């Protein structure tokens, strides 16, 4: 493998980084916050994400201590998966030969038939703000055609 990193070593590092992400999302009070989001109707979740989950001031106010190197962000996929937010960590630079980061992505429930698995998954993603609004309205872009 290029860069002199053996696949087994890369796997070990990625495993270690996934474990850090799992430990964080499983820790209180972040765990309860995420579970509270999933009790809401899907239409209310994008606002909850904006106002609470990616809001570091809010997280701090309820006692969530986000470890150094862990990022909580919104994103959008080319395959149009209805995603909400992601908890992500970059691998050490020397291991970024193939993959650069690992993450846990939190989604809406999804009709998997509507998510591209062919080359159209390589479309440009839509702006995540639009994705959030469409989720809140329970409408797809195709329904506006």
């Amino acid at each position, binding site marked *: 493998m290029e860069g002199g990193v053996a696949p087994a070593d890369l796997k070990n590092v990625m*495993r270690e980084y996934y474990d850090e992400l799992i*430990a964080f999302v499983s820790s209180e009070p972040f765990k309860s916050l995420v579970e509270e989001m999933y009790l809401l109707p899907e*239409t209310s979740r994008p606002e909850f994400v904006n106002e609470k989950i990616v809001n570091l001031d809010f997280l701090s106010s309820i006692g969530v201590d986000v470890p150094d190197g862990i990022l909580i962000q919104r994103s959008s996929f080319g395959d149009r998966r209805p995603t909400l937010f992601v908890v992500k960590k970059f691998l050490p630079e020397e291991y970024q030969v193939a*993959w650069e*980061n690992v993450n846990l992505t939190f989604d809406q429930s999804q009709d998997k038939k509507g998510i591209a698995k062919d080359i159209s998954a390589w479309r*440009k*993603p839509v702006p995540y703000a639009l994705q959030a609004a469409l989720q809140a309205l329970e409408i797809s872009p195709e329904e506006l055609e």
Partner: protein
Amino acid sequence: MSYTIDPEALKSETDEVLDALTSSVFIDKMVEFKAKKGVERSLFAMSNMTPSQLRKAGAEIPDHMRVSSRMFEDDSSTIDFIDYEYGKEIVQKLKVKRPDLWEKLEVNHPSLVTPLIELEKYTLPDEDTPLGIPLDETGKPLIDANSDDLPFDPYAAWACGCGGAATACAGAGGGS
């Protein structure tokens, strides 16, 4: 839908994803993907980086795994590779065709409206910045993956195992 974060389930899911992500075939494809730029990267992604193509190359890709482009907030390196024009078109259609829904958004979800107004004002820095792949009404791409004139550019590659609400992913490219 309720969801309980289960560390053991996440560990199990990430174990499965890791087996695929760190297979020598997938690693080699990712190294090749990252070495390419622009249209060359597009061609490579579409010709080599769907789950079925990766399986044909010998990678063991679980049925529920997806490989896709992706963008993140706060990532200036991917800002030009978001489909802003399509996004602006959808906002316009929402306002014109479904003013009831636009009003609903303003009344019930005001914090989601401001970014859409910003989106409407956004001007692409380069008018020639390509858009996404055009699809026919069945969702089939209208562009030949081997064409020299692809209308879009790839940004980053992402592979995700999809279990429940939480999904394990790994990504690279586009500086994300």
